């Protein structure tokens, strides 16, 4: 049986940072499981920048302002002690990243360059062209190679072994060989990323962003916090949902309706295009609803115009955005505006982290970091450029936390882990031998359509209730889902099957949280409850799963210095 002290699941920004810190300066056996090669992780997709109050671009910036912007942007649902910890120490972490070799754009003083970004009172998004995620991801991978981090690549975590609320170990599939392995360990960091693919039809996320770690922790009895808060990025390319960076707006781009107007002046005349993402996304959808958009139905869109920024600026600061628009819309943003429409982008909710200094969860031995969890730093709406910062920051503290946990805990019970392994070996075999059943891609597509239509940017109780009924039907249909590939080795169809199952559970959690939150806050906008209701809902949603029973609860938001306004 494989035995480790610390296992990290997921090798993106949070996972690799956790692995580096867990193994630093000690003899602990650390392993990282990733279902894709580390540099294929979703962190690489982040474009615009990463926030830190360095004061390089504007000396009057401060961690206090970063704090206020983050809490305000979160619609006051963020836990202020966690936010304060994050913003205070983030500038130091930037120096560490520079020392690791991340290639940042520089200003005339040789310091890390920063740009303005949505919801930010001062320009503090540290950038590298428009590829911050890519450069950070690769630098972390390089550091992992330097430190001989033990990667188990193309391994899929299938299950956490838990008995009476106690964590014992893991069961994972080596995709290449088809062998299912029991893994005994003292602590685990779940860093499997977000779950945008629950909105399968319209998302900026990679194909594998199905929230596997979040769903597995959910199954194991750890609650999910604030799942209903889904961020729709305002500027996904109209025809594919592929991300067009907020940097286009940060650098001065305009959003235009079919009258050629900068319509944001109707919704936020102060901040215009640099209002927070929830406001901009709703504004675009409202314009389309009111008939000021272009096209119809799923082809509806508005336009992003950066022509006035000039060729030199676009080629040096927005090269990725230009390339993307060229390939996927056939448009050169130097000469033409490009069609855009909101797309599901980020999951504010996730595994409930109970201690922001160690990223521990409700279950001893289990830590979580990155988009897979909710600390909560982003509350009801995340600021652009806060995610890459947050994932490496809490990845670091999760790694340190998991290291300390491993030094304190003992290994799990081998027999229990073996038992769970045998169960999954039998299940894998059953699914390989199954000759027919319900098409799993149809289940997935129906889930995606229901979520986009009924749990999208504008919600109401009736539609959401209908969605919940549909999700329950899909969960039932899933029991007879057909994998269709009998191979043991490299069976990606089986992985898809697991991903779809994970997505459905998260879709249900999102639906329940959204239905019960009878207010509008941040990214959760309801036609039937249009106001924010701090009296009744300044609290975090918690969803618990016990077998097929889903239970809703709430927990308080930590408010320290910034009273909700």
């Amino acid at each position, binding site marked *: 049986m494989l035995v480790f002290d610390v296992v990290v699941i997921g090798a993106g920004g949070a996972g690799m940072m956790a692995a580096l810190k867990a193994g630093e300066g000690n003899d602990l056996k650390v392993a990282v499981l990733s279902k894709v090669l580390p540099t*294929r992780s979703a962190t690489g997709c982040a474009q615009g920048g990463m926030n830190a109050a360095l004061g390089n671009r504007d000396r009057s910036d401060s961690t206090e302002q970063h704090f206020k912007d983050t809490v305000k942007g979160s619609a006051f649902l963020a836990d202020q002690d966690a936010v304060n910890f994050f913003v205070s120490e983030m500038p130091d972490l930037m120096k560490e990243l520079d020392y690791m070799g991340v290639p940042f754009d520089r200003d005339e003083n040789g310091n890390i360059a920063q740009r303005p970004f949505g919801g930010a009172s001062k320009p503090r998004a540290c950038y590298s062209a428009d590829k911050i995620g890519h450069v950070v991801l690769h630098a972390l991978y390089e550091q992992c190679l330097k430190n001989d981090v033990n990667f188990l690549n193309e391994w899929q975590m299938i299950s956490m072994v838990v008995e009476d609320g106690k964590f014992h170990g893991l069961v994972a599939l080596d995709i290449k060989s088809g062998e299912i392995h029991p893994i005994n360990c003292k602590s685990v960091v779940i860093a499997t990323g977000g779950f945008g693919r629950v909105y399968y039809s319209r998302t900026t996320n990679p194909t594998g962003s199905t929230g596997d770690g979040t769903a597995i922790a959910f199954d194991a009895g750890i609650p999910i916090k604030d799942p209903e808060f889904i961020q729709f990025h305002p500027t996904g390319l109209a025809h594919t949902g592929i991300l067009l960076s907020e940097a286009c707006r940060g650098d001065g781009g305009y959003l235009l309706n079919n009258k050629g107007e900068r319509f944001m002046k109707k919704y936020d005349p102060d901040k215009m295009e640099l209002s927070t993402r929830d406001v901009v996304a709703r504004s675009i959808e409202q314009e389309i609803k009111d008939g000021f958009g272009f096209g119809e139905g799923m082809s509806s869109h508005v336009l992003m115009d950066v022509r006035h920024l000039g060729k030199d600026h676009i080629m040096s600061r927005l090269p990725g955005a230009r390339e993307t628009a060229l390939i*996927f819309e056939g448009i050169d943003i130097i000469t033409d505006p490009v069609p855009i429409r909101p797309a599901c982008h980020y999951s504010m909710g996730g595994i409930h982290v109970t201690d922001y200094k160690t990223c521990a969860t409700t279950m001893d031995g289990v830590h979580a970091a990155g988009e897979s969890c909710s600390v909560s730093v982003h509350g009801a709406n995340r600021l652009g450029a806060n995610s890459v910062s947050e994932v490496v920051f809490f990845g670091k503290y999760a790694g340190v936390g998991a290291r300390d946990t491993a030094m304190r805990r003992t290994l799990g019970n081998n027999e229990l882990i073996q038992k769970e392994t045998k169960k999954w070996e039998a299940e894998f075999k059953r699914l390989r031998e199954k000759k027919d059943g319900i098409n799993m891609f149809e289940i997935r597509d129906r889930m995606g359509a229901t979520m986009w239509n009924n749990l999208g940017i504008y919600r109401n109780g009736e539609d959401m209730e209908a969605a919940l009924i549909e999700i329950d039907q899909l969960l039932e249909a899933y029991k007879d889902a057909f994998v269709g590939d009998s191979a043991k080795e490299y069976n990606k169809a089986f992985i898809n099957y697991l991903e779809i199952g994970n997505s459905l559970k998260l879709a249900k959690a999102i639906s329940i949280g959204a239905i019960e939150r009878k207010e509008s806050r941040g990214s959760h906008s309801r036609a039937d409850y249009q106001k924010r209701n701090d009296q009744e809902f300044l609290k975090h949603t918690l969803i618990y799963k016990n077998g097929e029973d889903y239970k809703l609860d709430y927990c308080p938001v930590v408010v320290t210095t910034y009273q909700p306004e």
Partner: protein
Amino acid sequence: MKTIFVSIKRFDGTNEWYQDYEVPYEKGKTIVWLLTKIREEQDVTLNFTVSCLHAICGACGVKINGSSYLTCSTTLDEVLETFKTDKLTFEPMANFKVIRDLVVEFDPKFERMKEVSPWLKPASHGSVETGFKQSETEFEKISSSSNCILCGLCTSECEQLAKNDGRYLDPFIFNKAYRFAADSRDADSTERIVASLEGELWKCVHCMKCTSVCPKEIDIAENIAFLRSGYNLK
């Protein structure tokens, strides 16, 4: 109604064969759309890797009619027009060990990449507490080579790798060696060059296919030439 005739090289760990499919043509689609349509509607046992769908993760390299492409950002029209055909033959990228169908093995190459120390060796003018100062010009020197997404298309096209007995390092590994040798924050001037020489740097035949195929427009062949030049690259 045009039909695209698709032939895909299959491999199940033991047997190799070409399997044929037919897909009705649709305008404005990419290659990954084609492969996904085949997989989800006709044959779910077909395997290929994709992730981000917008050419930043490097997961989706394949060979189509003998040339290497990223499936996510190559349009169907481009390939049909380039080859003036309605028959597309898919194979896994060349010069990789094949795992299954169009899925290839990268880990051994990443293991070899360690030979050129593909990480910053921080110079003494920086520290963990302060980071580094670096000028805009110095950043420009590393900005292109840092764009590498480890997609492997350069490896797939490399004429030296096609005939080498296994000692030659992949083009993307030479690019990494250059990327750090040229970084003003890096302390090393010779170790990576030596490692590249031991990796048969001088066997590059300068066919320039790596430069031509790179989806991030990195001039890999030029970076190889820089490594050979013996100049201080910083």
